[in-house]
């Protein structure tokens, strides 16, 4: 059963002479529970692809189906709800809200959804991520690794259909990198969480179930590990 299907996805920036094709007819599918790595050189279109899957950007043409639903048929409000419930995004630079503490940042998507986070779930999540003692700290008071754990917590907290991680370890040292990948892998295995990870790190890519390689906005290889 395919969870995510991408059909002929194109994204261009600028017009005429300045036109840049970031994605050029990308199509693939991801079954539920798969951990997919997208690799490629800088400027190959990895991040653009991830952003479109996460519905934070719109494609120039092509379709994205998640759970059989045409993602971009929705209006902006529904897209926001879609992102809140179905997608968990992890950025290289964490992108935490600086005025909220670790716990608040983590639970934010659920709060925005008008739901009250279950304290037990919050505690377990913070424990699992190893940041229980830092729960009331603001992002500026946390290290890079701790901020990324909060970011992962935020992505996973709502149990989304798919977790998208854009170079999640790109800004971290090797010890923290290994721990972060371990956390992602754990949730993939234990919760059967579908994940798409963009990475430059071959080691991380090799830990994934499948690797798609992009070049100039096109898929040049798609292989299972």
């Amino acid at each position, binding site marked *: 059963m395919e969870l995510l299907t991408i059909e002929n996805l194109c994204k261009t920036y600028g017009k005429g002479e300045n036109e840049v094709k970031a994605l050029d007819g990308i199509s693939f599918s991801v079954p539920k529970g798969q951990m997919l790595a997208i690799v490629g050189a800088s400027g190959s279109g990895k991040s653009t692809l991830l952003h479109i899957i996460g519905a934070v950007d719109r494609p120039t043409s092509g379709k994205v189906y998640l759970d059989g639903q045409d993602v971009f048929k929705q209006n902006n*409000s529904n897209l926001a*709800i879609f992102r809140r419930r179905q997608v968990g995004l992890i950025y290289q630079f964490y992108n935490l809200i600086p005025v*909220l503490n670790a716990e608040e940042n983590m639970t*934010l998507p659920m709060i*925005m959804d008008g739901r009250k986070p279950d304290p037990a779930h919050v505690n377990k999540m913070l424990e699992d991520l190893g940041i229980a003692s830092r729960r009331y700290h603001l992002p500026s008071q946390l290290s890079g690794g701790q901020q990324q754990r909060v970011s992962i917590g935020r992505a996973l907290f709502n149990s989304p259909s798919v977790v998208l991680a854009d170079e999640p370890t790109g800004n971290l040292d090797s010890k923290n990198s290994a721990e972060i990948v371990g956390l992602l892998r754990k949730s993939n295995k234990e919760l059967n969480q579908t994940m798409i990870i963009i990475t430059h790190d071959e080691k991380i890519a090799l830990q994934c179930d499948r690797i798609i390689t992009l070049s100039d906005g096109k898929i040049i290889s798609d292989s299972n590990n």
Partner: protein
Amino acid sequence: MFARKLAWRYIKEQKRHSVLTICSITAAVGLVVMLFTLLGTTLRCCYEIQYNSTPFHATVTAIIDNKEQREYINNFVEDFRENYGTADLYIEEAEDDISRIDIYCFFDKPLPISTGSRLDLFIADMLAKSGFDRNEIAVESDRDIARRIFIIKSNLSLYNPIDNVDRAQWIVIIAVAMVFVAFIIIALRMLIDTAFEISSKERERQFGVLQSIGATPKQITQIMTVEGLFLSVVGILLGIALGIAAAYLVFVLVIKSGVAEAFFTTELAEKALNFHIEPIMLVIAVVVGFLWVMLSAYGTGLRVIKKMPVEAISARSNTVKKIKNNTVFGKLFGWEGMLASRNNFRQKKRFTISVVSLTASITLFASATTAITAVKDVILKRGDNTSGILSEFRFNYYRPYDNSKLKQDIGYQKYGMFMYHEREDRIKKSGIFTEPMYMISTFLECADKSETVDENTYYKIVYFNFLNREMYEKIFEGKPPVSYDELSKNNSYIMYDNNGEYTGFSSDTFVFNALENVRIEEEYKDDIRSEYADKFIYDGINDYVFSEETEQSVNVAAYVDTQELSKYLHLSIGSEVTFIGTADSFESGEYMREPDLMMLSNSAPHDVYFYCDLLDADDYQLAADFYDKNKDAFIDYSDEFESMRRTVAFVSAVNIIATALNIIFALIAVINMINILSTGIINRRREIAAYQCIGMSEKQLNKMTILESLQYVFVSGIVSMILCEVIMVLTVVLMNIVAGGAENAVDYLFGNMFNAFVMPVLRVITALVPAFLAALLASFIPLRKLKKQPLVER
């Protein structure tokens, strides 16, 4: 809930933004409250002044001659008092049962609309209802002397609208004020908008993140509007306090500037000139302020959600912007100039907003101060005797035609002349005036024998003005064509004519037929008229004057150009030919020694004008008292001091209000600039660190920052100069239309055309200096803080 929490956090955590946004709201609301309060206070003072002098809306004046009519009046008064307000009666009984009754009507509520549109018609209907014949009542539009009753509306109703006509006038006044306020309010919207725009711009990435993790557009706009709500509460309250305090300060300064004393008695000033806060206007200011904040907040929210989350997060746009390769600053200041230019222009909207607010402030300052200085200069010029006013006071003594009265004058009895020295002594002894200058003035009608004159100008008035030494020196500004002593010694005159007809006159004598004027008593009029029919020169109003021609000549020592003396208008107005002699010559009897002239001088009227200033400006009341006590000595006095004092007080008041407005406008511009420039630096901390990482020295960084600030000020300065020049051109064109000749009008106001256009430019440059300093401070304070952080951290 979530939006409220996040908004509150943003306010608390982003203190600098919150403070700057509150400052913007405070300044905007403060300005509106100040204007409204000043407007309310002015209207209230107008009402109080009117009320204290005429405490009624209308007067009914009735001439009645029987008891029945008295009954009608009683009916009217009863009805009025019962239903509409107070009516005070003043009855003046005359002979034959005729009485005059004045009823002063004060309405304590507006007229019901349904009863008609006009106060006077309404009262007329009431009177008719009381029993009078409607045809006997004259209202404003049909004042008819033959009617019995007159209804006259008082000016009080203008400030306390009673009928539809008053209401309409009221609406016009309010509308005009509102148009002015509306312009300012629209400008203020920009200020509040900028504050929110900057605050949101800095958080754009965070809003992008929020959207990417599922915040709906509605929730994002909610965060902004809730934030606006919190900030507006504080900003509006502070704005009200600031606005009222500023208005009160302006009010106190205006009152203390001398306006009250100049225009009103102390009693009236105390009663009528009070600070007044108009609750409705305050409510309007609050509602407008609140509305603007919420609109700005909501509008900013809408702008934020327009972007896809990824665009907001990565600060990447799908549109490709063109960059100017060659900028003026780049050419002038090298690569630092080019970078400064690009940094400023990449945030075009911010740059524009900042430049517009700075330009508005500078233009207002330059044009308002230019106008006020020009008006002040005109007043000072008047005080400086360049527009016909020699002194603050002029006391007149007049010797009438009637010689019998003159002959009672002991001076005349003793010396055969009238006693003006006695008057001069009174002025001197009063101790409140400067040494008086004086002029003895008389005139003769004459038939001009000069060959240069055609028939139409045959009959002329010849004025003889005998000036004392001080006045002589003053009007010739120390450079008389002939010295005072020489003129006295030779019993000569300086000649000038107001019509410029004697240009080129070079003879040393002026020959004319003096017309001896003889007043004829009414009873002999017909006899003399028939006997000397040919000697009645004029008919009509001069019917009683009978003139006889006697040939005369006067020595002319010099001829002066009319233009030179025309500024002393009182010397030349109405004159056709004027001879200036000396008081010494007059006193030595030279003027009167000539037998024919002596005869004429006895019959012609003489005026003596004493000119003096106050020794101490505070002694004004003493001067007025002096005149009251010396009415026997002076026919009248003209008080230039009073009008100058009023004008100076009025200009000072305008100046204070303009300065207050200027300060608030400057404050708004500075808040805007600090907001924009400091935010610009803080937002670019990473970028600035990058510059330093690749080797930019502190000196180069400072240069770039100075150039960025300079560019704001430079562009604002250029635009302000253009605007000021446009305003000046419009002023000149307007003056041309109003005065019918721009050149003279402009000269009068600004000195000359060059001044008119250079003055505002100089003022713009003056305003640019503090603006530049403020810009530097706004950039360098955050930059200094930034520099303290290690490069890697940034």
